[in-house]
């Protein structure tokens, strides 16, 4: 009996189809941006063989991943408000009217669960907190398809309502105020975090997981030399950078040899998958010069290998658009100083439009294929 009348007990006049539609439109935009930027990030890190990402614009990955993460944080108030607005529908009676209605509700369940799951796991990932048994990357990636697929089905089902309310002003002042409050909450959430990538706002980023100028030599790091277990091997006086593979003459260069090659200085961002980024000044040898010196073909695929013995980002592939780019360096210095151990001493890769995890540190070998 209680269940039958429950939906009628939610009496707030702030709930309306138009408010739900408006919040739904905002969420549709935000989840589309998150899905697109997320896929871009995924396929930047795991490109199929035929896909050659361009190395420009230099800041493309920085912008897309900043949007992904800061946009995700700002989506939290939107999603909570939307769920509050439609909460009475959870208790509709009878719960299932027909097979079609059951299917519709199943997809809504997938959408709600997926949206909450993506925001919760994403927020915890940027705070380096992993209380779950699954791998974050796989779960966040595959759940994105489930969520966005359920969103597509939901939008098809609700399309008539979206069209009815898309260009109509919310007349009721209370409801308009409610929507403004939700937008202000999203804005405030972005304001206190965006500075970790939008450096002019860095002072305001009091709730961001990173400070863009906090870390060794004033730059954050994800993996330290200690965590990578390379503290001994990188200080070995017998260190050599090997250039091997499909080359005319293999090279074996000491650190002194590297510093005698033509040095170039570039400004490039280090842009992490977790959304923080900061531009630095890097000095070192162009990867292009090194491959040419060894006699590699211009369409070769270059692989840089770290001195780490294990780790999922020990090796990274640099395809022709990136290694032929004059901005791509094997860097020896950061902001005028010799690289700190945590920044990849003696040599690290730095390339434009590339996620931080693929800017391989502590490089011991460059393989040309």
């Amino acid at each position: 009996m209680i269940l039958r009348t429950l939906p009628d007990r939610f009496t707030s006049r702030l709930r309306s189809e138009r408010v739900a539609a408006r919040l739904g439109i905002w969420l549709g935009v935000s989840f589309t941006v998150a899905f697109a930027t997320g896929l871009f990030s995924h396929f930047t890190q795991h490109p199929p063989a035929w896909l050659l990402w361009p190395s420009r614009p230099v800041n493309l990955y920085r912008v897309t991943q900043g949007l992904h993460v800061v946009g995700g944080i700002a989506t939290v108030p939107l999603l909570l408000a939307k769920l509050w607005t439609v909460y009475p529908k959870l208790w509709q009676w009878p719960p299932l009217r027909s097979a079609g209605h059951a299917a519709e509700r199943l997809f809504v369940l997938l959408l709600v669960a997926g949206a909450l799951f993506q925001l919760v796991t994403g927020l915890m990932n940027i705070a380096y907190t992993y209380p779950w048994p699954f791998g974050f990357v796989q779960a966040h990636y595959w759940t994105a398809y489930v969520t966005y697929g359920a969103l597509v089905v939901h939008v098809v089902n609700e399309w008539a309502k979206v069209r009815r309310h898309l260009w109509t002003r919310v007349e009721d002042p209370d409801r308009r105020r409610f929507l403004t409050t939700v937008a202000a909450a999203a804005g405030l959430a972005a304001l206190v975090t965006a500075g970790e990538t939008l450096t002019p706002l860095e002072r305001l980023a009091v709730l961001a997981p990173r400070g863009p100028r906090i870390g060794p030599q004033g730059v954050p790091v994800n993996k330290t030399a200690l965590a990578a277990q390379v503290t001994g091997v990188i200080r070995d006086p017998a260190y050599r950078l090997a250039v091997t593979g499909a080359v005319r003459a293999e090279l074996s260069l000491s650190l002194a040899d590297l510093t005698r090659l033509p040095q170039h200085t570039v400004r490039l961002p280090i842009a992490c998958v977790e959304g923080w980024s900061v531009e630095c000044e890097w000095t070192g040898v162009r990867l292009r010069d090194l491959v040419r010196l060894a006699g590699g073909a211009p369409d070769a695929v270059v692989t840089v290998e770290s001195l780490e013995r294990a780790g999922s980002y020990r090796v990274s592939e640099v395809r022709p658009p990136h290694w032929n780019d004059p901005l791509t360096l094997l860097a020896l210095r950061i902001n005028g100083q010799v690289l700190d151990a945590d920044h990849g001493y003696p040599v690290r890769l730095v390339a434009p439009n590339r996620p931080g995890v693929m800017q391989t540190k502590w490089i011991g070998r460059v393989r040309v294929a």
Partner: protein
Amino acid sequence: MRWIGYAAGCALVALGGHGLVTGSDPAGWALWFGGVVVAHDAVLAPLVLLAGVAMGRLGGGPGGGLGRAPRAALVLAGTVTLATLPTVLAMGRRADNPSILPLDYGRGLLMVLAALTVAALTTRLTTAPARPGSPPGQETAAWGTAAWGTPGRGMAGLGVPGWASRTAVAVGAGLAAWSVAPMDPAAALPLGGLAGMLLLHASDG
């Protein structure tokens, strides 16, 4: 057209489901996938509804509620806290890497909350009481309309121009944030001021 949408949506769901079954820990994933729904629908949402009922009953004046600005401040405070909670709790700190979660997040959150509190109080104080004769609130759910809906005349009614009361709210909020972080005025003053202006905008509609 409709069926193209359904087909595309189902294909994406199936692709994701297949990936989760083959490339992840399906049981652990399912626990979290269902768990977040239960946590929201059975815990968070009822708590918000209860808070809404309480807010509707507090205050008791004409309109029968806390007032617009305090309500908006609670919405902003609650959602921003949730959106940054894993960072604020900072359980991901690592001994070898002080650049991860480097800030004092308790203080950061307090700055935001202090700014919102002072902005809400200043807005409420500078807003004249609602018109007499506005109906008492009957709202029982969260963010109820009654109090929110009663339009105040603002300090304009007292002869104070709107820009002055707006400035008072922003400055008050900035100072409130500064009082939490006295060593950092360059962050606290603009942050608090902006938070105050967002709140003002929210409660103005």
